[in-house]
């Protein structure tokens, strides 16, 4: 009671130092949004003010788009209180919008306007936009091919790795036979198999699927195995005294207890398989983003390369986000898991 009234008195008795507290609050809440808007206006102006040094068709549209984003940033943050969660999210990201606008302005000026950076190797933003608008079908085909290959190989590798890991962790006999093979073959980078795979498999697509599965399978196997092996025997004791049969011990004790490890394996496998995917596409498969990169390089189409890289990084990041979302769903019982 006494502390309550004390703090109460302090709050009301504290002298106001600022002459216009609403101004301070406003600057704090919307200042970044206004600055972000200014940065994007600068970007738009940088597009339209000077003539391009090269021949790009999307400069004008890009400048307009920059103004539109500037307007959204301004009204979105100033009026955030009326926009609910979207407004709050925008406000929170305003500093990033400032940085992005400034970076784009600099990029635009340094490439398209004054060519401070050597031109074919450092394409301006509008030429990348041009790729997305004019070369879209080919890019989409590549995305589709990559996703298909990656998804198939990854699912096969993850499934086989998981089953192998559980079997080794559970059965001594399986461990006896599989463990040495795993030790011998596992650490070999999957890409080392590439030359052999491409002439032993009937198609380059099946060869790549195999390699991606291999790259995924190894970490998933090892981590599933270590997860199953490290399950406390106390859990088994409890389950056995309650009448559990061996199948229950595997499915309802070992596997759920090992799941956090399994997800580490799935995460590592995903990273490893991306690398294999790109290399396989560059060398053997005549489709996919890796192939697109290779093709773009052959034509010295640097804008296409950057465009493809951006898409690729979005896809990889999206895949990992998806994996983490699944993990968070399945492992709600864990406290303090890392947010991706």
């Amino acid at each position, binding site marked *: 009671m006494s502390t309550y009234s004390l703090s109460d008195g302090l709050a009301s008795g504290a002298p106001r130092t600022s002459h216009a507290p609403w101004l301070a609050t406003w600057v704090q809440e919307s200042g970044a949004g206004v600055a972000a808007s200014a940065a994007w206006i600068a970007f738009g102006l940088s597009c339209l003010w000077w003539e391009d040094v090269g021949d790009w068709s999307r400069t004008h549209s890009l400048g307009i788009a920059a103004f539109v984003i500037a307007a959204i940033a301004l009204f979105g943050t100033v009026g955030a209180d009326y926009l609910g969660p979207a407004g709050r999210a925008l406000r929170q990201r305003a500093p990033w919008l400032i940085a992005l606008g400034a970076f784009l302005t600099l990029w635009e000026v340094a490439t398209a306007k004054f060519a401070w950076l050597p031109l074919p190797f450092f394409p301006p933003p509008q030429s990348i936009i041009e790729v997305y608008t004019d070369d879209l079908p080919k890019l989409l085909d590549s995305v589709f091919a990559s996703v298909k290959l990656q998804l198939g190989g990854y699912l096969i590798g993850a499934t086989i790795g998981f089953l192998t890991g559980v079997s080794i962790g559970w059965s001594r006999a399986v461990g006896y036979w599989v463990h040495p093979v795993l030790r011998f073959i596992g650490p070999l980078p999957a890409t080392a198999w590439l030359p052999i795979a491409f002439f032993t498999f009937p198609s380059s697509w099946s060869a790549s699927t195999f390699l991606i599965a291999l790259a995924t399978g190894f970490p998933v196997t090892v981590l599933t195995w270590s997860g199953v092996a490290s399950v406390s025997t*106390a859990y088994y*004791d409890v389950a056995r005294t*309650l*009448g559990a049969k061996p199948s*229950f011990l595997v499915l*309802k004790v070992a596997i*759920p207890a090992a799941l956090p490890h399994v997800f580490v394996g799935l995460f590592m496998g995903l990273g490893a398989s991306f690398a294999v995917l790109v290399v396989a596409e560059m060398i053997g498969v005549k489709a996919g983003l890796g192939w697109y990169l290779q093709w773009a390089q052959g034509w010295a189409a640097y804008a296409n390369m950057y465009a493809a890289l951006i898409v690729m990084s979005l896809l990889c990041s999206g895949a990992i986000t998806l994996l983490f979302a699944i993990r968070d769903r399945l492992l709600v019982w864990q406290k303090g898991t890392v947010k991706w």
Partner: protein
Amino acid sequence: MVEAAFAEAIAHAAAGAALDIEQVSHAFDIDGAELPVLSEVSIAVEPGELVALLGPSGCGKSTLLRLVAGLDKPKTGTLREDEVRIRSPHPSRVVVFQDPTLFPWRTVWDNVALGLEAQGILKSQRHRVDAALDLVGLSDFRTAYPHQLSGGMAQRVALARALVNDPKILILDEPLGKLDSLTRITMQAELVSLWQRKGFTTLLVTHDAEEALVLANRVIVFSERPARVKADIRVDRPYPRHRGDPYLADLRRQILGLLGLDATW
């Protein structure tokens, strides 16, 4: 409501079983050397008795409980539940370990349901899980995960997980050892009332002579490792018992003497 839960639970209750431990010896191999842990232990437990096992730390009490549970086999000697030899674990003999060992990936309800699920009878017997949770007063926490529980609550869930199987022999390995003294006293009272209502045979390992005397109608004192039965003491006192009861105080002095603590206490 709790009364209804009791009635529900009692409907399934089976009375306690007799437990015969006959000339049981056990030893562990540690790096080739043999470590004798139990030496010709014989105890005949009547159906429905609550027997406390006391002994120096590391003498082999938990080992004996694992043998009774059927988790390990003795080197020599036999253990029988109602004249039937114990060879493997069975849900009629359920253990509550010192650590609650709840499955962290299961909710409280799912943890309690474990035994029925493992035996494949959960579908038709879901009400028994609810009744067991009522019994330990944790119905409001059915959807909580173990990391959200306090130590005492977790131990109560472990108790519910055991009781839901209607064991004939309840095996308690220092179940209250890690609880604060207040929770402990409350749970001691709960244990006695549960045991009185359900009538299961109970083996209770404890390191606390007072706890043994407040709860048990028989106290068995073991020697240092390898454990031998040093004394078998009847505690003929009605429940609820008083901690200050001079009769119990006298027994306590006697037991502490057997444990080699007479000078200090």
